[in-house]
């Protein structure tokens, strides 16, 4: 058999297997029951508008709060990690290694229950929102710090040398010359971190949310229990995708732009 014929047969077989599996699933599946469990229009309709005006909104708020904290703390950590002062470097390295190695859920428990137990006469400002900012932000800061450090180091040394040769001090050269270029470089990975943080907000329920502070996953879980039906999970899933899919597209567009070299 000629090589080309054999290649065509292999390719044809691959298609055939795929179609066959699809057919078996389509025939064997109980479509009525599936639709009844996952796609009941009345259950889905009953979730609105609360699932958007409360749950989706809180998910977005938690994400933005934690991301903002992570960005600011991450920038401070990245600069500390590159600092000429050794203790700053040690602290930043230790923080980053520890918080990248701990599960986000554990950190959330630590902030939500550990700190209140240790300091019963004090409160984390902002209530639940404050705890979420700190609890998810502490982990996000570690990842953001590493991303920013990589970005700062990716800016050619000649850039800061040129800035210094014009009389700019080291901090000025960092703020006006190096950081703007570094942020441009790390925009795609930062967006990815935003996406994974969006999903991590599903952990917030462990802190005990109320009707006003509920986020998507908990909201869907409650509806699931109440209706004894899986449709809420599908609705919540779709709403997550409403946030994350456009961001993933944005990352791809940014990466295309970067690879073109601006």
């Amino acid at each position, binding site marked *: 058999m000629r090589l080309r014929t054999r290649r065509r047969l292999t390719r044809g077989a691959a298609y055939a297997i795929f179609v066959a599996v699809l057919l078996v699933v389509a025939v064997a599946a109980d479509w009525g029951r599936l639709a009844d469990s996952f796609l009941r229009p009345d259950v889905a309709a009953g979730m609105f508008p609360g699932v958007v005006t409360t749950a989706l909104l809180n998910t977005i708020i938690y994400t933005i709060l934690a991301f903002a904290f992570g960005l600011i703390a991450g920038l401070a950590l990245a600069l500390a990690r590159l600092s000429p002062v050794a203790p700053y470097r040690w602290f930043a390295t230790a923080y980053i290694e520890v918080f990248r190695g701990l599960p986000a859920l554990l950190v959330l428990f630590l902030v939500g229950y550990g700190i209140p137990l240790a300091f019963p006469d004090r409160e984390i400002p902002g209530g639940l929102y404050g705890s979420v900012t700190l609890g998810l932000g502490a982990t996000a800061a570690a990842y953001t710090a590493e991303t920013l450090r990589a970005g700062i180091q990716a800016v*050619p040394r000649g850039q800061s040398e040129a800035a210094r*040769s014009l*009389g700019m001090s080291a901090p*000025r050269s960092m703020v006006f010359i190096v950081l703007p270029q570094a942020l441009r470089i790390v925009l795609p990975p930062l967006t990815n971190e935003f996406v994974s943080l969006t999903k991590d907000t599903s952990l917030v329920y462990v802190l005990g949310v109320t009707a006003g502070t509920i986020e998507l996953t908990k909201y869907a879980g409650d509806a699931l229990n109440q209706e004894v039906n899986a449709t809420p999970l599908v609705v919540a899933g779709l709403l997550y995708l409403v946030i994350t899919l456009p961001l993933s597209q944005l990352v791809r567009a940014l990466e295309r732009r970067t690879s073109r070299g601006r």
Partner: protein
Amino acid sequence: MSTVRIRDLHKSFGDHEVLRGIDLDVAAGEVVCLVGPSGSGKSTLLRCVNALESATSGTIQVDDVELTDPDTDLDAARRRIGMVFQQFNLFPHLTVLGNITVAQRRVLRRSRSAAEKEAGSQLARVGLAERSRAYPAQLSGGQQQRVAIARALAMHPGLMLFDEPTSALDPELVGDVLAVMRKLADEGMTMIVVTHEMSFARDVATRVVFMDDGRVVETGPPAEVLTNPQHDRTRTFLQRILHPGA
């Protein structure tokens, strides 16, 4: 214009001694060309003169400021010393105008309008007045290097350092950059130029300094050093660079 005074300058990177005792004086308005084989320490010497590299020992004085003194405010000293790099090192995220105004505004605290006016006149000086809104990536290498010169000039330096300013350029673009440097020399700027452009050294330099292996081997007016070198090493180097095929 500034004067430079270098005494017994040594510079080591780890165990490797790149500069082994340099003495050099540059008078106001002089154009000194540093020539020599690669690895001879020319660029390191130049980078020591604005303290981008710190000297291991010895002294460097620009006007009455001693750069090697640990109490010297190097940021303040560098404002008066312009530097032009082989790779241009323009800021890619800023327009031509932004490149020339950023240090004026953040260091000299000039107003936006004053900084832009200064930038405009410096761009006219290097023949690029109409490209102020372009980004560096939209310019040819020769244009980028002229913007880099304008950026340095906007700080009103008394001394300009050029580190192989035409080595990264396509041959047909070299002339524009050299013309700007020539004009600057004619206007009386003190300049130290690391270069392989022997015709520029011959026509513009007031003095040529030949370096090899971290030392000054020979120094004098270009007519002497380039046409009648006294040392074998200078002769060999010039032969190689002027008749590469031979």
